[in-house]
């Protein structure tokens, strides 16, 4: 993975001093709340229900075991011994103290980490496919460009105070796992007819209160120009995006109002001036960064291991975990493993400091000391030998990290909701846990098959409910908490936004509603058909009728 040189380290150190000074000025009254707000937000610090919340950047979801141990230590020393992995591949601490955040940032800087631009109206942490570099369907490993984008966007002076937040996702695989269509800019890498690396550029996607999938602004962009083209897009947005109404301030609204044709015209006109300007990337820089992301020193192995096969034969629990958690790998004899942070009955995406240390140890022992965070809020060991998988499972299982539910109904994506977030209309974690408890029968869960259930506590959509096969949204009705259900949302190349099935439900009705939706699916599904496919084939009516019957 990328390693800091003295330039990166100096920037992060200078950031710690800068924020220490800003915090001190705030605490002694030299900065008002309004003046301090954007400064702390651009350092990932929210003021929340109980305490501040600190969002730590995990650039494109890549983490070393050393960094994870540091996060565990920070969670113990400055928080309550756990952290929350978010849908944007970051880590959130729910209980830090404002006065101590400069110290937390200093600790982070010792392991090449920071909280820069994890919130606020600026270019946020760049996200990508959690299987980058190891997925069999990968065309181009997007991580080198993601790192180049990270550096370029860090304290980009022109884009430090945009109308609203700005999220960029990159993807280089056949199956999109980075949801490029739900980002302000989505960059999709491919090889063009001349076998040169090129980029399809999406713009104007986003979830939140007005969910919109992005449009293609440029079908073919030579990779050298990725930074200047992004500059052209963001410049047009910076000048013309709305600043009078925060609910209409995202780029998606500008693109929608102008229409993609007009928006493209303006961006292309701007780009004529920026094209080939100094931020144009050259071969040397790409090479320099790409060398940090070359393949691991794999052993030459067969793509088959008898001890592994026997364990699957003889151990049903292991076999059912393998089915969900072990994924194919580019390299023969290796697999990628997802550790579930979704044990039934606990907050999705949470990990205790003890679990973080165990995972760090597993990474050191079996996966070259590296980890990934997925936007589904799980942790991933990318490079495990077949013969080691059973050992990983035993250890993971002993620490509640091996619930065999990856990609299944209880692998719920869930925002912090009313338990932690001051914007919430309703709690979301208890809904997740009550559904997990209602579907605790593993055989049944496996029979239902692939299903994505996403929950957000308000229309800000942190839990991506719009693109869940089943989406649940917390709504406020006369001061009490209700839940609206959508079905038919999907992420990926054929992304779609879900449709609301009807009036909302009370919290205690929710597990029953999900059961009814599943019953309709089981009754009508064709062999091998996933829930989402059945919904797409039949439309929402049969589901709606049964749920409200």
């Amino acid at each position, binding site marked *: 993975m990328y390693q800091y*040189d003295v330039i990166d380290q100096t920037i992060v150190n*200078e950031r710690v001093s800068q924020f220490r000074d800003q915090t001190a000025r705030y605490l002694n009254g030299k900065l008002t709340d309004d003046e301090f707000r954007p400064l702390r937000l651009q350092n990932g610090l929210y003021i929340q229900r109980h305490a501040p919340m600190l969002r730590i950047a995990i650039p494109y979801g890549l983490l070393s075991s050393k960094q994870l141990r540091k996060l565990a230590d920070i969670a113990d020393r400055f928080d309550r011994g756990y952290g929350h992995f978010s849908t944007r591949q970051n880590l959130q601490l729910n209980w830090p103290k404002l006065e101590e955040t400069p110290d937390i940032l200093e600790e982070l800087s010792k392991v090449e980490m920071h909280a820069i631009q994890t919130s606020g109206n600026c270019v946020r942490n760049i996200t990508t496919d959690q299987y980058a570099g190891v997925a069999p369907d990968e065309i181009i490993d997007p991580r080198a460009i993601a790192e180049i984008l990270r*550096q370029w*966007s860090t304290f980009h*002076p*022109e884009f430090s105070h945009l109308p609203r937040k700005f999220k960029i996702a990159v993807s280089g695989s056949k199956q999109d796992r980075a949801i490029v269509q739900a980002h302000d800019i989505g960059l999709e890498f491919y090889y063009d007819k001349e076998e040169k690396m090129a980029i399809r550029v999406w713009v104007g996607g986003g979830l939140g209160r007005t969910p919109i999938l992005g449009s293609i602004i440029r079908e073919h962009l030579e990779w050298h120009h990725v930074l200047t083209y992004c500059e052209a897009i963001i410049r047009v947005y910076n000048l*013309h995006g*709305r600043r009078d109404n925060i609910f209409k301030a995202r780029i998606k609204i500008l693109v929608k109002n102008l229409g993609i044709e*007009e928006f493209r015209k*303006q961006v292309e006109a701007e780009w004529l001036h920026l094209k080939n300007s100094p931020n144009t990337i050259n071969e040397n820089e790409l090479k320099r960064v790409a060398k940090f992301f070359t393949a691991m020193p794999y052993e030459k192995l067969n793509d088959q291991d008898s001890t592994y096969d026997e364990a699957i034969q003889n151990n049903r629990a292991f076999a059912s975990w393998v089915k969900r958690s072990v994924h194919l790998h580019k390299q023969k004899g290796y697999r990628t493993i997802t550790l579930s942070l979704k044990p039934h009955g606990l907050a999705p995406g949470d990990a205790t400091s003890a679990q973080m240390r165990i995972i760090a140890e597993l990474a050191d022992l079996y996966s070259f000391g590296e980890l990934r965070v997925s936007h589904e809020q799980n942790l991933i060991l990318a490079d495990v030998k077949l013969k080691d998988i059973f050992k990983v499972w035993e250890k993971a299982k002993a620490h509640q990290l091996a619930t065999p539910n990856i990609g299944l109904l209880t692998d719920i994506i869930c925002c912090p909701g009313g338990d932690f977030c001051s914007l919430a209309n309703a709690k979301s974690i208890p809904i997740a846990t009550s559904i997990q408890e209602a579907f605790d029968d593993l055989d049944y869960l496996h029979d239902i098959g692939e299903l994505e259930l996403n929950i957000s506590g308000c229309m800000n959509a942190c839990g991506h409910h719009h693109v869940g096969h089943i989406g649940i949204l917390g709504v406020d009705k006369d001061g009490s908490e209700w839940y609206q259900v959508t079905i038919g949302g999907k992420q990926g190349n054929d992304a779609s936004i879900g449709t609301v099935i009807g009036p909302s439900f009370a919290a205690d009705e929710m597990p029953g509603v999900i059961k009814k939706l599943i019953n309709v699916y089981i009754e009508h599904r064709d062999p091998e058909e996933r829930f989402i496919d059945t919904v797409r084939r039949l439309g929402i009516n049969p589901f709606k009728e049964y749920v409200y019957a």
Partner: protein
Amino acid sequence: MLNSQLILNQSIIQDEWTFVPLPNANEEVKKQAGKLVLYKLTGESQPSELQINETVIPQTGKIILPLRVYLKNRNTLQARLKNDEISLWFATHEILEPLLASEKNINVFPLIAVFSERFQDGRIFTLGNLLRTRYQFTNILRACGDILQDQLFYLKRSGFDSYLIKAGKDSNEALKALQSFSEPYQGAVDIKNPVWKRKVRS
């Protein structure tokens, strides 16, 4: 309360310019549907005819005039302009095209100031960049309005070299912020090249 203080490059100096404000508008605010962009509903008003006509132009000394007031009085101001007494200011939501259309060379102005009503309004950075890079403005570029210490570094990188710090804020402390980062990553107005073109990196 501290008066508003002026930073030029790296030092605090006396302001030799008089800022000429627009009189307050009391007519209804009209939302501007901009000319070159179909969509520019940012909610701010452009100065009205009435405001422009009622602006009092000081007869002597170095003055910073509202862009629209200058354009309206352009002919009568030429002598003073030659005398380096006339500079301009405009707000972040105004469009530059009328200026560019009337002045072939904007370097006739010894100073251009961009007024930002709220420090969170990031348009000022793009405007600075455009004035320096596209329109080749080489004289003093001043940021004024809600100008605070913690945005100075970004302003400097966007081509500003003069900052009128908001009243009540300590300019000595603000000066330090110009040095926040020693080697920024990306190319911008002040340092053109990205760091990987300036330094050998491992």
